[in-house]
């Protein structure tokens, strides 16, 4: 404590106002001290910005709050090695509103289709309690709780801080519950208009053992 005070008493003021800066422009002198700092301009329209990462650790859900805003007009989610604790389940999500947030549990309209071990399979719902990102009819073809897990990406358009519908599309690859079986699926879904703030990912049953979800925002113009 006394050492820090001694250092603070010795250092001259740099002239840079204390505080936090975003997209910062800095000037550094020969001694390596910051002598000027200012806020810079945000990235240009269409630039992709890394926003958040969550890694599951036997978690019931992975949620991103205060996420959607007018700053971005698209959001890219990537899924890496998402493994469920329970065998033969599906990855699902719900959108949330408000600061709470309150997650919406009605009117999700989704469809899945893909090559399932050499056979075309599809599934859908016009009014579900959540959007499903991997569902096909048989438990055999749902996500295995070992192996490579659930991998892929999803692009959401719409939740931009104003009351609007949201839609998503993506492609994924995962190992199914049948030994050696692999599945590639695409999906899409939409929801009635609302001012969305959050999104939550979870399994249809049981925890998420491991795996990572990254979120990127595409800057609006």
């Amino acid at each position, binding site marked *: 404590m006394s050492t820090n005070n001694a250092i603070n008493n010795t250092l001259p003021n740099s002239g840079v106002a204390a505080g936090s800066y975003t997209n910062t422009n800095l000037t550094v002198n020969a001694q390596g001290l910051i002598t000027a700092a200012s806020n810079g301009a945000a990235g240009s329209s269409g630039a992709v910005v890394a*926003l*958040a*990462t*969550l*890694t*599951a*650790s036997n*978690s*019931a*859900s*992975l*949620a*991103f*709050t*205060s*996420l959607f805003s007018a700053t971005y007009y698209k959001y890219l989610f990537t899924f890496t090695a998402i493994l469920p604790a329970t065998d033969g389940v599906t990855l699902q999500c719900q959108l949330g509103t408000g600061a709470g947030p309150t997650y919406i549990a009605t009117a999700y309209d989704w469809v899945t289709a893909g090559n399932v071990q050499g056979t075309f399979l599809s*599934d859908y*719902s016009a009014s579900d309690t959540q959007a499903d990102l991997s569902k096909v*009819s*048989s438990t055999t073809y749902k996500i295995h709780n070992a192996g490579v897990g659930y991998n892929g990406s999803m692009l959401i358009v719409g939740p931009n801080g104003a009351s609007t519908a949201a839609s998503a599309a993506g492609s994924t690859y995962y190992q199914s519950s049948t030994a050696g079986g692999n599945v590639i699926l695409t999906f899409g879904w939409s929801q009635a208009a609302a001012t969305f703030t959050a999104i939550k990912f979870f399994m*249809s*049953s*049981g*925890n998420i053992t491991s795996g990572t979800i990254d*979120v990127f925002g595409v800057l609006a113009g």
Partner: protein
Amino acid sequence: MHELVFDCSTKEVKVVELSEQEQAALVDQWAQKEAQEALRVKTKSIDERLKALEQKVGING
């Protein structure tokens, strides 16, 4: 049992531990969803078989 929450306004990760009541509610919800899903798959299968049968005998198409 917990939920992981990334608050994008503060850039902080929160580990939200579920109470015993919340855990029980979640487990109950999983059981209900499994039952609903089993029923949905069964209904869909019956619908598809019925549609195929109707087409075979020349009803509705």
